[in-house]
């Protein structure tokens, strides 16, 4: 059998499912009771699931870029594991959104353009291994992202939507490990050599300008928070600040003195880092429409 490219073999009519990512998986919420309360606005709920799902999906893609590039093998494995947890959360959230919108998780992940993604900028910026950062910058982002998402999901466990509450409750356990992992690396790098400390300080300065966006509510988040379904991100600020201050304090570091940059991810406005990220994430699915493997 010969193929012009390796991916062609994936779309042949094989009986066995291939190991690769993509279609052919069971619906991520298969067998889960997914009834929606009549008091909840369905379009808002779908949009909110996309916001939280896109944060996880896009950041999982960034973390996966480290695979085989981390400073040690254990770290390749750790970052891939963290990415897998987030990808699992993303699948459930995108499936929920897809079901309401009449599409599915694959179409949402692979066929939307940048302006249709609803993730915050912190999830998409290049913090390394690309030219935008390094391992220290990556740990700075992991610390801020996981501290924020943990606080968010922790509150979301009380959501009036049972699927969101359940996805959040699982996510809380996972993110507790992610946040600790980042915090321990920040301490280790800050307490290492002058050089590692310098890199840690520089890394924090790269992610800090994106902090404000995390606590800025989109109108949909506002509406759903009032209905008891979502969490108003503004309410998370003091808790997240206090976690970050604790870690920085233990590391002998201070908050970077940098100006905030405009956000807008929740409204579909993204940084220039987003298009190349999506190009890589979506290339196979778009090159072979309808491919099943």
């Amino acid at each position: 059998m010969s193929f012009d490219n390796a991916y062609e073999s994936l779309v042949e009519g094989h009986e066995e499912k291939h190991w690769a990512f993509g279609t052919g998986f069971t619906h991520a919420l298969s067998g889960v009771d997914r009834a929606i309360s009549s008091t909840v606005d369905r379009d808002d709920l779908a949009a909110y699931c996309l916001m939280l799902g896109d944060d996880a999906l896009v950041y999982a893609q960034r973390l996966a870029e480290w695979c085989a590039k981390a400073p040690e093998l254990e770290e390749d494995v750790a970052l891939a594991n963290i990415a897998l947890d987030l990808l699992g959360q993303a699948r459930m959230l995108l499936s929920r959104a897809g079901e309401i919108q009449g599409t599915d998780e694959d179409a949402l992940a692979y066929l939307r353009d940048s302006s249709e993604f609803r993730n915050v900028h912190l999830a998409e910026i290049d913090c390394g291994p690309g030219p935008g950062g390094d391992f220290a910058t990556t740990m700075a982002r992991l610390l801020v992202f996981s501290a924020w998402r943990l606080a968010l999901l922790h509150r979301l466990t009380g959501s009036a939507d049972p699927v969101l509450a359940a996805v959040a409750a699982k996510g809380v356990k996972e993110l507790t490990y992610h946040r600790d992992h980042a915090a321990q690396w920040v301490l280790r790098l800050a307490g290492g050599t002058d050089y590692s400390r310098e890199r840690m300080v520089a890394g924090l300065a790269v992610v800090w300008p994106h902090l404000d966006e995390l606590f800025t509510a989109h109108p949909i988040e506002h509406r759903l928070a009032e209905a008891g379904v979502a969490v108003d991100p503004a309410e998370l600020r003091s808790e997240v600040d206090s976690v970050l201050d604790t870690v920085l304090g233990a590391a002998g570091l201070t908050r970077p003195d940098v100006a905030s940059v405009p956000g807008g991810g929740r409204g579909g406005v993204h940084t220039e880092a987003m298009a190349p990220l999506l190009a890589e994430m979506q290339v196979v699915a778009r090159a072979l429409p309808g491919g099943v493997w």
Partner: protein
Amino acid sequence: MSARQVAEQVLDPELPVLTLADLGVLREVSEVGDRVVVTITPTYSGCPALDEMRSDLHEKLTEAGYRDVEIRTVLHPAWTTDWISDDGLRKLTEHGIAPPSRIGPRAVGPIPLTLEPPKRRVSCPHCGSARTTELSRFGSTACKALRRCEDCREPFEQIKEI
């Protein structure tokens, strides 16, 4: 065999020393005539073994003569390593995997930060020594951490508490 007995004996695809019952992911089995509804819960959000578990359950129950098999997933309450049976903990140790400690219900309020690896006493499953250190909190699968024994020097995996 009852449907429950069939379902309980299905092995976890990633930790084949444990049955789904040992692992605590099998939440309910109900049987009416030749119709069976099995309810399972995932360990981690991204656990790739879940689909495998669903199809293994389906296959084994169909082989046992049940014609109408439905596998449901529940997300709530979220799985915890505390649901691994005592028998499961023993089997893990026998197969060179350190079992998780019992953690009990989490206290209410904000989730505490852990700024250094927790000083949990984890015994080496090979030689029994208590002098072991954590190499990485993340191992070959989402549920495992990697440790090393300071006495026999062997690395080993541990199911981390969640």
